[in-house]
């Protein structure tokens, strides 16, 4: 099954996931917690493995993890960090 009808300039979720590996990202969960770090890898459930992860609650740094696994069902969005 194709991800969507693709026009020449469109970027499907699969394209996006492929393009952000190894980049600095912000992962926002439904609870409002942000995780900032380097995206090591992810799968189709949006399960995410991150390195140098920082946990932000209400914009405040609360925790740091060397590596972290985030369960995909909690993910609201994945954003490229500026």
């Amino acid at each position: 099954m194709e991800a969507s009808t693709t026009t020449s300039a469109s970027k499907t979720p699969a394209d996006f996931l492929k393009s952000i590996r190894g980049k600095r990202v912000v992962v926002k969960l439904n609870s409002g917690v942000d995780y900032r770090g380097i995206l090591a890898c992810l799968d189709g459930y949006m399960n995410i493995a991150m390195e140098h992860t920082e946990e932000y609650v209400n914009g405040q740094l609360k925790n740091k993890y060397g590596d972290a696994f985030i369960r995909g069902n909690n993910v609201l969005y994945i954003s490229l960090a500026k």
Partner: protein
Amino acid sequence: MALPTKQSAAPNNPSLLLPSELVDKCVNEKVWIIMKNGHKEFTGTLKGFDVYVNCVLEDAIEYDRDQESGKETTKNLESILLNGNNICMIVPGGERS
């Protein structure tokens, strides 16, 4: 192509526009996305989507209304993959009203 054709979906109604076809018309256009929880919204340029309506947005803005104070916070995001799980509505145009 994942989308059924108009003919197979509704043989007697040539004017029918499938929901996914409407979203497909929005690719590379501005959209306004309203989430299920009722206090979170996004606008941005829709770059693509898949069968779960996971959406890639560029130059996205996240709007979050605090339920107690009614104050709205916005956050600019360059490029995001929005999980389709929590999407309620997609409005073509990207102008919030």
